[in-house]
């Protein structure tokens, strides 16, 4: 995967809150960038080479249901590498499914890495909001 390869992350609406700075700006929480207990340390993302942000959003709600994504943020493969995280495309359970692998890191470092990803994603801004 190229360093410029964008990785698209669906953000659940509960992890989004309107920001203080302006009514139109919304923040996503760190938890949206942290693998949960059922993820086996792998944070699911869409491969930006195969989907644009809107396409990934539409695909996601078609399989998970309306209301399960509140928008799309993204980080590049190179940005993941900069915080010692590897990204892989596994095309499972659908073509273009990829993941950012936290397993190589000590779990004590996961929170910090998730905060780095959140920060990088916010610098880029929302890629799609319904």
């Amino acid at each position: 995967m190229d360093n410029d390869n964008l990785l698209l992350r669906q953000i659940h609406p509960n992890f989004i809150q309107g920001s203080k700075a302006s009514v139109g700006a919304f923040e996503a929480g760190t938890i949206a960038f942290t693998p949960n207990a059922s993820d086996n340390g792998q944070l699911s993302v869409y491969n930006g080479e195969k989907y644009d942000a809107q396409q990934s959003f539409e695909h996601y709600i078609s399989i998970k249901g309306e209301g399960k994504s509140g928008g799309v943020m993204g980080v590049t493969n190179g940005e993941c590498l900069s915080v010692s995280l590897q990204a892989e495309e596994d095309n499972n359970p659908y073509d273009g499914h990829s993941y950012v692998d936290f397993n190589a890191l000590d779990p004590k470092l996961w929170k910090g890495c998730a905060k780095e990803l959140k920060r990088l994603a916010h610098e880029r801004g929302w890629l799609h909001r319904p």
Partner: protein
Amino acid sequence: MPEQTSIFISPRLTGKRFNDHLMPLDLLEDFAALEDLLLSVAKKIYLAEHPARKIAPKSLTDGVSLKLEKVDEGSAILKIWLVINTLLNVPQQPTELTTTYFERAKNEVFAAIDAAYKNETIVSEFIDKDDLLHFRKVGNRLREDEAIDFSPNSENYTAILDRRIRHRILEASVHNNDPRDAKIRASVASLNKEKGIFTLSIVGGGNTEISTAFSPAFYNLFIESFERYETGQKILIFGTAKYNKANKIEEIVSVQSVSILDPLDVPSRLWELSSIKNGWLDGEIGSGINKRGISKLSDLFDLHFDHSLPLPHVYPTVDGNIQAEWSTDTSEVSLEITLSDLRGLLHDYNVSSKEYTEFTFDLHSEAGWNSLNQTLSTTLSH
């Protein structure tokens, strides 16, 4: 007779009368009243989860009773069993389900006793003032030096009932409709110019109407909030209000001040998150939020958080807890709060050095909040 049983409560009795490890017969009536209370609360929980039903099915409670097995020798601890007579308990209501509703009812009742023990407001969507009247009988025969500890081994509650705590509970059961001081968070949902009435959607539940004639200064703030209703804009009203039996605002009687709330107002956000149900993340994953825990957190935040500090963004965690987050130029700070025990774990990550530090806080106590405020003050000023 076919019965399914499980040990349900092991209350400990303390006081001179129990030193010989026997239970006076008159206390049996107190426990019979407890059974009535549990039946009532179990029905309410069932109905809350089945809004299409107007009454709970008979199968939920038929054949269900509490039975005292024995008083252990050498101990003043009773063994009370939940007994489900499977002949009377019809097949479509599995006994496991009945047990679950009674377990939840028990937890609600113990939490109510716990709140009275701590001199806090009893907050339960399943226990109303009429239910609290059961305490006219529960604990009625306790003497001055006596107490019942309903859950002596619990880490979650201090469910100790004595005459003083029973009196507090009965005081809470009296519905007093006199106006009292109120701090109300609300969004302005509608304006009827013809009648001169705003309709407020109140944080904490319910709607109420308020006249537009209170004050021209307030009018403009109400209008500002009304026009930004879709963005979630809320106002904070200090005044007096009448409350109904369920402790919901019935009528705003007077208004002393009105202000526009910060969009990150934490109690408002916590109220939004309190409706999260199991499976919220993807249908299977994502635990629901403990309403009592989040309500208590909201009250304590309002009371003890240093409001000169920046407000955090607040999110649910996948395991049903709460995470508050602050971002500065150099730090990403998160505070994960476990709702069952109100413990806070603060994680301060420095994006320049890539190092982190962690702190824990007991957010039950004022001292814990003071310590959190001091730590945040230092951390967020970097």
